[in-house]
């Protein structure tokens, strides 16, 4: 009886948390979409949406861009994941960590760096034009959006796929081999199906994120997509314009539908593996020619996806960079601003680590409740948590102000909304979907027989969590932590509404305020690079931990 009570109260607690910090603030803003001019309920605004050629075109464009981005992102992610986790590949930890970096694109300054490199007069096109007399429109129109989005978000697929591959039970592969399966057949029949949960988790995140993404279309000045349309309407026509929220509602519904389709894609199949003996698949050696080919492919992809950060580095050390392949001269002057304002970095570390920790805890319980219990309304928890992906940060920020500003803190009578911890909460809510998808994917691969046998031996729920699930899910939990943490470091749209004093502002905010001036480009880039470095070091350390864990388990299995 106790275990049920424990889980039920946890579910209730999480439900309340999501209700207070996600559903209520959104509702505060979104109900406008269902009101007519007299404040009565109406669906006329939705009728207007489907009557408007521009909105329909935007919907189509968003859908097209999101789907194509999944395809291109898979092209980037598959070789990196496959080569580094299936073969003895020197530097695979570094490669896997580096492959994660593109997710961390600091606001504004990342855009400037991309344009200096890939823009129609960026370094690459200037060289191409000089040498061959033509240019490639990397950054133009919808294709430009697809290009940038897939570079930016392919790590979602990469990180989930690697976790999945590492979780495949070696014995599965060994039994298949002993039954005579090998080569491509082995890959198709064993590896591919067993890694599906990770791939689908990653791919659906890419789809959702691109579908709802605002930053990239705005940076490329592509307006005919849904998220920019919603944003432009809300921020220019006014916060009470119903159409902005109609688009918001449509974004949310489409996102939920995408999560549902992803579920269907995995539906009815059992991905769990009983044993967790030799962690990960057998790593093989390359044949010599394969090795060079693999290194070439890996380095080419890495170079491509890391090029924005190479440009960012140049920008942070450059003096003036204008219509030229490289900056005119180099300096370390910009880093002075960073060290004089290190408070932003401290704030970011504090806020994002707490937020990511909250995310991992919540995600662990939500995925457990959804996948392992029969509590009524468990799917709803999943959908509500995921819908955070589709809520424009600006809307959530305004919702928080509306909901929490009139409540005062008991100890010093300042408004709750301007307390720094609310920035942590909003970051946690916005990044929860990432941790949740990661946890879901790992838990799907763990057989429930392990828990059931422990239970039949009299183990308490808590000790099952502690001794079985958490150790087996370490990879997924860490992946969730890292994804949430690192993407939170560059979050701006929601937090900017809540920052009430500069001394409590995070890093992304500092970048924003520097990037509003011509002279602020260098310091902005320096701040951005520092942020990226923090995340890179964190990712590398956790990759080491994961690697060590698998090795340990591998050893134990041998003994």
């Amino acid at each position, binding site marked *: 009886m106790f275990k049920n009570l424990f889980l039920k109260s946890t579910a209730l607690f999480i439900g309340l948390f999501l209700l207070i910090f996600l559903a209520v603030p959104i509702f505060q803003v979104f109900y*406008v979409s269902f009101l007519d*001019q*007299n*404040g009565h309920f109406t669906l006329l*605004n939705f009728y207007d949406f489907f*009557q*408007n*050629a*521009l909105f329909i075109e935007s919907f189509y464009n968003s859908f097209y861009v999101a789907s194509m981005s999944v395809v291109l992102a898979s092209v980037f992610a598959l070789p990196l994941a496959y080569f580094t986790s299936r073969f003895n590949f020197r530097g695979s930890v570094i490669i896997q960590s580096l492959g994660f970096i593109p997710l961390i694109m600091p606001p504004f300054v990342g855009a400037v760096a991309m*344009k200096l490199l890939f*823009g129609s*007069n960026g370094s690459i096109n200037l060289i191409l034009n000089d040498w061959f007399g033509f240019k490639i429109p990397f950054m133009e*129109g919808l294709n430009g959006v697809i290009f940038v989005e897939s570079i930016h978000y392919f790590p979602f697929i990469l990180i989930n796929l690697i976790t999945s591959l590492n979780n495949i039970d070696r014995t599965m592969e060994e039994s298949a081999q002993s039954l005579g399966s090998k080569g491509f057949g082995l890959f198709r029949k064993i590896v591919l199906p067993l890694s599906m949960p990770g791939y689908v988790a990653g791919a659906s995140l890419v789809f959702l994120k691109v579908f709802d993404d605002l930053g990239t279309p*705005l940076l490329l*000045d592509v*307006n005919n997509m849904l998220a920019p349309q919603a944003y*432009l309407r809300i*921020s*220019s*026509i*006014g916060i009470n314009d*119903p*159409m902005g929220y109609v688009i918001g509602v449509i974004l949310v519904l489409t996102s939920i539908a995408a999560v549902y389709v992803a579920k269907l894609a995995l539906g009815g199949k059992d991905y769990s593996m009983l044993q967790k003996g030799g962690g990960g698949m057998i790593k093989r050696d390359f044949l010599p020619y394969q090795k060079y080919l693999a290194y070439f492919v890996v380095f080419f992809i890495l170079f491509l996806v890391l090029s924005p950060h190479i440009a960012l580095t140049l920008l942070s050390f450059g003096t*003036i960079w*204008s*219509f*030229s392949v490289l900056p005119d001269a180099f300096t370390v002057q910009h880093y002075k601003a960073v060290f004089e304002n290190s*408070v932003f970095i*401290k*704030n970011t*570390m*504090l806020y994002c680590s*707490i937020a990511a*920790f909250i995310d991992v805890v919540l995600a662990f319980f939500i995925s457990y409740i959804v996948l392992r219990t029969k509590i009524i309304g468990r799917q709803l928890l999943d959908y509500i948590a995921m819908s955070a992906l589709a809520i424009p940060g600006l809307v959530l920020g*305004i919702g928080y*102000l509306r909901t929490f*500003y*009139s409540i005062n803190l008991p100890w010093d009578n*300042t*408004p709750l*909304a*301007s307390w720094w911890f609310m920035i942590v909460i909003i970051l946690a809510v916005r990044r929860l979907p990432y941790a949740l998808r990661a946890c879901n994917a790992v838990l799907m691969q763990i057989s429930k027989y392990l828990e059931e046998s422990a239970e039949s031996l009299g183990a308490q729920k808590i000790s099952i969590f502690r001794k079985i699930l*958490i150790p087996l899910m*370490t990879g997924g939990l860490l992946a969730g932590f890292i994804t949430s943490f690192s993407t939170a470091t560059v979050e701006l749209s929601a937090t900017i*509404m809540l*920052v*009430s*004093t*500069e*001394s*409590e502002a995070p890093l992304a905010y500092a970048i924003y*305020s*520097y990037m*509003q*001036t*011509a*002279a*602020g*480009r260098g310091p902005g880039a320096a701040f951005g690079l520092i942020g990226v470095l923090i995340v890179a070091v964190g990712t590398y350390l956790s990759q080491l*931990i994961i690697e060590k864990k698998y090795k340990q388990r591998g050893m134990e299995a041998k003994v």
Partner: protein
Amino acid sequence: MKKILVLFISFVLFASNVLANSGNVVIVTSFPKDLSGQFKAAFEAKYPNITVEVVGKKTTAGIKYIQETSSNNGTDLFWASAPDAFEVLKGDDLLAKYTSKVEGIPDLVGSYPINDPQGFYTGFAAAGYGMMWNTRYLKANNLPAPKEWIDMADPIYFGHTGMSAPSRSGTTHLTVETLLQGDGFDAGWGKMKSIAANFKTVTARSFGVPDGVNSGDFGVGIVIDFFGLSSIGSGFPVGFVYPTVTTLVPANIGVIKNAPNEKNAQLFIDFLLTPEGQEILLDPKIRRLPVNPKTYAKAPKDFPNPFKDSSIGAAVKFDVQLSKGRYNLVNSLFDVMITYRLDDLRAAMSAIYKAEAKLGNSSNAKAKKLIAEARALVSALPITEAKANDAEFNKIFKKKRKKAKDIEKYAGTRQAEVEAEWDKFVIDNYSNAIKKAEEAIKAL
């Protein structure tokens, strides 16, 4: 898990010493750190016992923040460029009156009043729109630097220019409105569209334009002067010029109603207007036009002085009331005709350019007529000037939630509905213009 926990706790300990704060005057501003930071430092040096807390937010977010927090206000000052932002706050009864005691500030800059006539906000610097260009870009593409707005409508600039949308930036809005008031509603929009047809992009942020020109992403941008002047000051290879038709507008500061530190807030306003405060505006990273004419004596040699050079910002007698009345409608019209349909507009204009190039000096009457018709289609408006100025019709576009009883004459008409009609009109015209231009080419 333990390792993560240890790591996590050390993060917390590491950063928790940050969270103590104190503040004697809290300013919400849209100005960048380069500007606000200098004033903060100078003010704190002069008044060592007062701490300035600066909170930077975009103008629209700043307004929203002050509106949403008014029940429990903790902000003393709002400090931003666009006068219309202050009008919104004034309209919501969120500003307190204050008239500074500092002397020597004229009433007008160009033809625009420096201070709010009712005393709710105070101008402290002036700015006007102009064109900035990247010298390397123009050299590489063999283009001359433009001097007047109409130069930017020249086919040689096709795909080389950029601007921000007026709905995104209050100051860009003023440029468009100035053009409409200077040339008349119909002719003004015609000119605006022929300039827009050359755009490579309409940026979502107003700073996106100087950013693009500084990077060399496009060659010429329509920007507010301090973006151009401070880019020059920061060493970018760019130039800036005011065209004859421009409006100088003051950047402002106002005390928030029920400010917790009202005395300090007033002290800060006074400080902005003193000679030492005004001189900060001349800093190479800031470069805004001081409102105190005496300060120009210390300005660098080629720095524009609107109090001496009467050609800057005086060509148009700017009608603030007219602008205010149709503010949102003009934004919406710009977005429907230009921002969201830029590709269509460019395609239409490019077809016309082709036809005109082929026409050359030939006197083919049929082709000439077709080209004129195509141009007329491009510049045609889905709305008449009378309707655009109609106060009743404008109520559909008000920012506040519209109630049917407030709209009266157009009750039941929704903004999205009107925009969908405009969109259809515009799309049809642009594609018909292409057909006409192609017919003209065939006729030649």
